[in-house]
């Protein structure tokens, strides 16, 4: 019953975000700030993780292809499919649930605890719009981060595969281009966008509606990470079922 009421409150929050818009000149600077905090500052960790995971995917695939009849170009194919379809959109989103999600929950939660949200409300400002809307807009940039992750992941796969002696560069590029279905990029883009909305709003919900003090802010950040991850994983299943099956 409690879960149902949270789900209901979450969707009411979505409605309330758009109830009364903040002045455009104020929103503009908030959006730029959020793009920097949520997007640009996440770029380093995304590049680092993508590079190494791309490399590991290639090594694991190569080591598990023991049949001499299987062409080595399949290593490049498997790396591409793993990175584009799942690793970059889904697992980077889950990593971002830890980084960006906990940042959002703790910053909004601290504002709740220190009555800063009450101060906004007393001034006649729609605090949900002021706090959450810029995050939603900033997260429109998230799919572009995922594209960067895909590119860097494939670079990592190339470096580990070719310089690790598992396959030649020609074999890698042959595999990379093999049976490429452009819709798979659309699928990855669509789910990245949906995950971005989840990343902006589920942690905001946990921060905005939290009650208590400093300890509860920490608890809310943990709960937010767990629930954001769960929602991303369940959505991933549903989107895949709808778009690919």
């Amino acid at each position: 019953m409690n879960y149902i009421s949270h789900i209901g409150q979450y969707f009411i929050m979505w409605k309330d975000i758009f109830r009364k818009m903040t002045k455009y000149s104020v929103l503009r600077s908030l959006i730029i700030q959020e793009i920097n905090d949520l997007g640009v500052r996440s770029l380093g960790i995304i590049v680092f993780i993508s590079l190494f995971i791309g490399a590991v995917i290639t090594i694991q695939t190569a080591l598990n292809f023991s049949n001499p009849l299987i062409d080595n170009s399949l290593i490049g194919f498997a790396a591409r499919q793993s990175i584009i379809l799942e690793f970059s959109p889904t697992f980077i989103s889950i990593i971002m649930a830890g980084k960006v999600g906990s940042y959002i929950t703790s910053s909004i939660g601290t504002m709740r605890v220190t009555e800063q949200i009450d101060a906004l409300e007393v001034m006649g400002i729609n605090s949900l719009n002021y706090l959450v809307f810029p995050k939603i807009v900033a997260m429109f940039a998230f799919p572009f981060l995922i594209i960067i992750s895909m590119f860097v992941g494939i670079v990592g796969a190339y470096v580990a595969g070719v310089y690790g002696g598992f396959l030649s560069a020609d074999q890698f590029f042959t595999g990379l281009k093999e049976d490429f279905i452009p819709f798979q990029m659309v699928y990855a883009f669509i789910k990245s966008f949906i995950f971005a909305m989840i990343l902006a709003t589920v942690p905001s919900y946990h921060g905005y509606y939290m009650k208590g003090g400093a300890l509860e802010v920490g608890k809310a950040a943990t709960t937010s990470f767990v629930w954001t991850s769960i929602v991303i994983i369940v959505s991933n299943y549903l989107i895949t079922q709808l778009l690919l099956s």
Partner: protein
Amino acid sequence: MIHVKNLNKSFNSDHVLRGITTDFQRGITNLIIGQSGSGKSVFLKCLIGLLQPDSGSVFYEDKEYGKLSPKQKRELRKQMGMVFQGGALFDSMTVEENVMFPLKMFNPMSSNQMLNRVNEVLDRVNLKGVNKKLPADLSGGMQKRVSIARGIVNYPKYLFCDEPNSGLDPRTSSVIDELIQEITKEYNITTLINTHDMNSVFEIGEKIVFLKDGILEWTGDSQSVHHCENQHLNNFVYSSNLFKQARKANLKGL
């Protein structure tokens, strides 16, 4: 003027406010006093609309708050200033940005006009040279003054102060009290102060509302406190020996 009529508020089985009816006049400092847990903060939050009362009405002049549309409520809230117990300053903004915030949101002033107004109110609360500092770099008293400056910068008609003296030394508390009283007279606003500081009661209490377990037990001014027969109020106000002595002296006409 704010008129409160038969206000009730409960949290589950806990009946926090019980049928409160009173008025708060413009141009005087209205104090809400009572022990911790007596319902003062809940009362204040019901007045400004942060909490929804179970029953009863709050009138701002002739407008009943509960019957206003969300848009009208937001318009009314633009006329309110609030000084929170902890200051509630936006900690990522400088003092100047904090004070300028309500102007930026609602006032069609140019940047220069806003800056002039910010400097004017910071000067009014005796804060100079702190414009570029962050709230964390200020003392508790200075933070309260910034909070007052933010509360009055947009020319409010109503000023609400939730325990503005908590955590401050007696001298600073007194300065804050005097400042709020002066601003109330100067701007001719309706000021409500939620406090359990007895110095505030005697120094600036032009109208005092005493709450006990969510019930309005007594109303009067700082002078009538000395002659009051209400046992609960006397227990609350004269819980320290210093104030007991003061009362004896006052009754003797010393």
